[in-house]
């Protein structure tokens, strides 16, 4: 399913956080969302996922304005992985994955074979099958992150939004998670801090700066030394020697 946003504006009180953001993501594409802290990445993800209402502009999924789609219908197609999800409740990994089936179950319906298959498959996809009965509280930060991605997968979405999914993960799991997201047969929009990971795994990258889109295109087009200097205020050397489509950034200590 495609994701399209046109002229999104959003703010808190008089402070504008996103101004005039437009984007278009094709079916099956992985879009990386990068930008400095406070540039509006998380807010944009929430507007696109329908968790916040824009002050003006529209967000469309598969050509339909999400403001007109009932919450549950939307959740059957769209999953959102928040960063640092936490709870005090004593739930098992399996309980958490079962929550992913919420939009597909009516108030009193039982647990179907399809629900079971979705949960089992999602747990296997993130390599956590052996942890099914474990208490969520006893998981490491990285394991929690993988469980939440598995939960989003159990939701069987067509579009997935991920807010810095590689937070807390070691490099092996960062790469594993992004490879998983890239290879999924769904449209995904991922906010990322690590620019090299964004270059490695995203089909296209959108750069936000102070609530505006300053660049959008393939990693090779977007990640230039000029842009890194202007937006992120760092000196870096961009190398295209290994793969011209996947630039590698080497930051200078100064």
């Amino acid at each position, binding site marked *: 399913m495609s994701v399209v946003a046109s002229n999104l504006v959003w703010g808190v009180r008089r402070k504008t956080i996103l101004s005039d953001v437009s984007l278009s993501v094709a079916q099956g594409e992985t879009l990386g969302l990068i930008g400095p802290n406070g540039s509006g990445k998380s807010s944009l993800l929430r507007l696109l*996922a329908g968790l916040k209402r824009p002050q003006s502009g529209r967000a469309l999924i598969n050509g339909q304005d999400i403001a007109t789609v009932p919450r*549950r219908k939307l*959740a059957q197609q769209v999953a959102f992985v928040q960063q640092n999800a936490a709870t005090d409740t004593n739930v098992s990994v399996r309980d958490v994955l079962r929550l992913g089936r919420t939009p597909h179950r009516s108030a009193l319906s039982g647990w179907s074979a399809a629900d079971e298959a979705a949960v089992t498959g999602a747990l296997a996809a993130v390599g956590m099958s052996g942890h099914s009965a474990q208490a969520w509280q006893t998981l490491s930060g990285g394991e929690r992150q993988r469980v939440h991605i598995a939960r989003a997968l159990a*939701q069987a979405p067509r579009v997935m939004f991920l807010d810095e999914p590689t937070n807390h993960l070691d490099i092996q799991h960062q790469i594993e998670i992004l490879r998983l997201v890239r290879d999924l047969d769904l449209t995904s929009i991922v906010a990322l801090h690590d620019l090299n990971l964004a270059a490695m795994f995203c089909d296209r990258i959108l750069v936000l700066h102070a609530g505006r889109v300053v660049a959008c295109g393939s990693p090779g087009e977007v990640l230039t030394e000029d842009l890194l200097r202007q937006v992120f205020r760092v000196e870096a050397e961009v190398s295209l020697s290994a793969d011209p489509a996947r630039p590698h950034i080497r930051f200078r200590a100064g």
Partner: protein
Amino acid sequence: MTRTDDAGGGAGWLALFLALALVVLAFAVALATAIGDYRIGLGTVFLAVTNGLGLTGAEIPPIEASIVWDLRLSRALVAALAGAGLALCGAILQALLRNALAEPFVLGVSAGASTGAVCVIVLGIGAGGLSLSMGAFAGAFAAFALVALLSNGATSGPNHTILAGVAASQLFNALTSYIVTTSGNAQQARDVMFWLLGSFGGVRWPDVSLLVLVVAASLGICLWMARSLDAFTFGDEDAAALGVPVARIRLILFGVTAMLTATIVSMVGAIGFVGLVVPHAAHYVVGPMHMRLLPACAAVGAVFMVLADIVSRVIVAQQTVPIGVVTALVGVPFFALILYRSRPQT
């Protein structure tokens, strides 16, 4: 134990637990009906009840039949229903506010009820026309409305709601104290105090019918929304991402808890601790998923309250200790045990 499902493999265990709880409840109600200043044998209790239901026509002393049917049975049933209702409210609020300390009175409902009651007892507002219960009910709802207003309807976060509840409680407690100290006499203050700590004295069959209706309706609504409550595990936004209409669910469930708490408080006073301790105990037995937790809470709450009522009547000869005192005295050690057993194993 493998919990495979909330309505499949695990249902057997839940059904067994609920069946057991109902047997214990029936026994506790029978005991509560037999015990008292005038002791009645369990056999006579059984016959009096079946007579009352029109199932038998056994010959038993009319005085005993009347004590069982008109006084003690209705009292025991109100205790059971109040316990079930308060425990249910506690479980709902702990889920919605994501706070293990939440209980029915966190929304200022009991403070509001006491102000309403004091207005009737001390100030004599609406004397005759307005009963104590109606005053308490009005006060409870006034407090709830204030909390709803302070916390921006149902749109703001859980901590905001709790703070609004604390503010409302302080305000209404201050109003109560002000009214009692400025215009009350010692006897009135004592009446208010006694009423606040809760009492099942004086409840009758119409109270039972009303409470059955309110508790059953609340339980039904809450079970209907049990899946949505589960979705609040990781917060409001996460619930929204799972397709739950968060604002609507919060408003409905806050409304249900306020209604249920106000009804119970206006009938039997502010009985603390049940709403806090029972959900934790039930959670310990049946796990966190609400389709299982809510019925278990209702069952455990009912048993707990009936037993507490028995204790309140026998602990001091010829005198009834306020039920709120008993629930706290019995509940705290029990709660401490749960806290100790469920501490993180790290």
